[in-house]
């Protein structure tokens, strides 16, 4: 008998929730936050505000997706912010007015981002150095290049480029969300479902076992860093559309916020578990908090404190392992 019974469905549901517990929490948090936001800002469900909210989070969402790939391999990428800056400054320096010109620059910037990620990956893998310190050094180098391109904010971004990415498709769905769907379907999903994607998870989970199972550990790690660089560059391009100018320091906050989004989304910093689903929720939570605090009328001087507290509590709940492990020994790794 091949028909599924209700019991099968219930069991599948149970398994689904148990497996995606942490991601579920992230989305519950996001929905709660949106609920509070809607309560404070009744015009939330107008097209304009929805678009603005989506735009607010998009750059961080893209950058955090890249960070997710690296964190899955049990690494970390501290150069995400500088790559965002680099892509922003490069784009604002090279952008012409014509459509083919802009497309060419976009492709070039994405390639530069991927190259930056490639350099990170190669040094980590073949230099056999720790990711945290390698990406710390390359962050400095990439931010230097960004500063070289744009010592002072400025540059040129064609108006139609900015409009294109920050408005709506068919005047209904924010373009940014369409872009996100595009990235998920055509860039992340193929990566995730490929052998490389599987290898990324395996490497983060247990590198030795992955190696002994015949997976190409080196290629998986490098691929994760390339993906991070590529998505960070994409985030920078989106940011360029939002700000319509180039600024070498604009990406600075993205590094730490992307790590926060990854952790909030339930991905383990030790690698091997998690994914972009939670990260997307985490990134939106981080970005929307400031708006919520603003509309709640909280004293602007207290805002950084509240943002910090919320971040701290959320991250602690997401990353605390005391609640998930059985005995004391297991807590130490």
């Amino acid at each position: 008998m091949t028909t599924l019974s209700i019991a099968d469905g219930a069991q599948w549901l149970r398994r689904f929730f148990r497996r995606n517990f942490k991601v579920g929490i992230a989305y519950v948090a996001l929905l709660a936050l949106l609920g509070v936001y809607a309560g404070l800002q009744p015009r939330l469900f107008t097209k304009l505000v929805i678009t603005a909210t989506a735009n607010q989070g998009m750059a961080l969402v893209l950058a955090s997706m890249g960070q997710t790939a690296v964190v899955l391999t049990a690494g970390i990428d501290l150069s995400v912010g500088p790559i965002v800056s680099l892509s922003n400054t490069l784009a604002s320096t090279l952008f012409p007015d014509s459509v083919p010109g802009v497309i060419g620059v976009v492709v070039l910037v994405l390639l530069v981002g991927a190259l930056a990620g490639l350099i990170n990956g190669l040094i980590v893998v073949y230099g056999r150095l720790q990711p945290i310190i390698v990406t710390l050094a390359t962050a400095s180098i990439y931010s230097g290049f960004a500063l070289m391109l744009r010592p002072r904010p400025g540059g040129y971004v064609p108006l139609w480029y900015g409009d294109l990415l920050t408005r709506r498709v068919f005047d209904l769905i924010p373009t940014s969300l369409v872009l996100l769907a595009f990235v998920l379907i055509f860039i992340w999903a193929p990566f995730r479902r490929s052998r490389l994607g599987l290898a990324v998870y395996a490497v983060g989970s247990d590198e030795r076992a992955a190696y002994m199972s015949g997976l190409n550990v080196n290629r998986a790690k490098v691929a994760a860093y390339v993906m991070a660089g590529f998505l960070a560059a994409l985030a920078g391009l989106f940011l360029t559309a939002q700000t319509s100018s180039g600024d070498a320091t604009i990406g600075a906050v993205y590094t730490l916020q992307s790590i926060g989004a990854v952790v909030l989304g339930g991905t383990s910093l030790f690698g091997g578990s998690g994914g972009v689903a939670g990260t997307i929720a985490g990134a939106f939570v981080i970005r929307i908090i400031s708006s919520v605090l603003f509309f709640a009328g909280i004293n602007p001087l207290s805002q950084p404190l509240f943002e910090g507290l919320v971040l701290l509590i959320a991250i602690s709940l997401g990353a605390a392992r005391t609640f998930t492990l059985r005995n004391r020994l297991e807590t130490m790794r």
Partner: protein
Amino acid sequence: MVTTSRAWLSLHRWLWGLNQEQRSVVIAYLMIVAIVGLGSLIMPQFASPNYLLLQLMKASFLGAVAAGQMMVILTGNIDLSVSWTLNLAAVMVTSIAQGQNERLWLGVLAGLAVGLIVGLLNGLGVAYLRIPSLVLTLGMDAVVKGVTVLYTGAQPKGESPELLNLIVHHKVWGGLPSVVLVWTAISLFCFIVLHRSALGRKIYAVGNNEICAYLSGVKSHRVLISAFVLSGLMNAIAGILLVGYAGRSFNGMGEPYLLPSIAAVVIGGTNILGGSGLYMGTVAGAIIITLLESTLSIMQISQAGRNIIYGLVILGMLFLYGRGSQIRE
């Protein structure tokens, strides 16, 4: 003739007898000599005692922060709450002392209390809640920033008491700024803790393998908390000293100390994963970073070029120190 060849022989033997920890420290000090040499080629005044003492003074602040960071890194963790702990401690000093020498001790106490509390919270979160230090100290930094902004009303209050300025700037023995003596005292303390005390041995043990240390009877939770508390105190001390240096406190003063502190510790030969590293290396690392920044600013290299060279130097020294083993080994 015989004596010089004897000297070379013993030098040679000493060099080969060094283990990796010590070799990194030697390379670091050689790097200092190289930078001073290079700098004096570009600007003859570089090697002058006045300028070098000025560099030493600047390095003292970074040195204090790096000392605390080293403690935490040795246990296999990291402390990203450096900048705002430093800031809040500094703000405490100026707002409580309010420029009066009589109230200085009260301000200093308040500043140290800040460092102690932040360190304690960090340590408890890492040791008992098992929150990875990378994210916990990050969140803590954001919270401390919030507290500072709220407390100062986005504008720092008060100025530094004269006594504190004196402690930092006063020159003893014809030229040595007394803040360097403070750093020396801190270094002596850290050296004794790390290399001559039981706590130090436990810190290295926990960094090497926490499970083994715990099973061997080391109270690893206490060790972790101690490391973070020491780091918090060091950051607070750096903040207090910086108040004396600048004459006031301002928001954002801790920003330039976070990444250089990590870089100084790593350049000094400490393994970023913990478990190995010598304190004298961190001292050398702090000096190298300070000299590097000064040399680059003298050479009139733009901020952009400085960033690039900074990153390249860190990578270069990491490659010199020896890397991890391949997975097959």
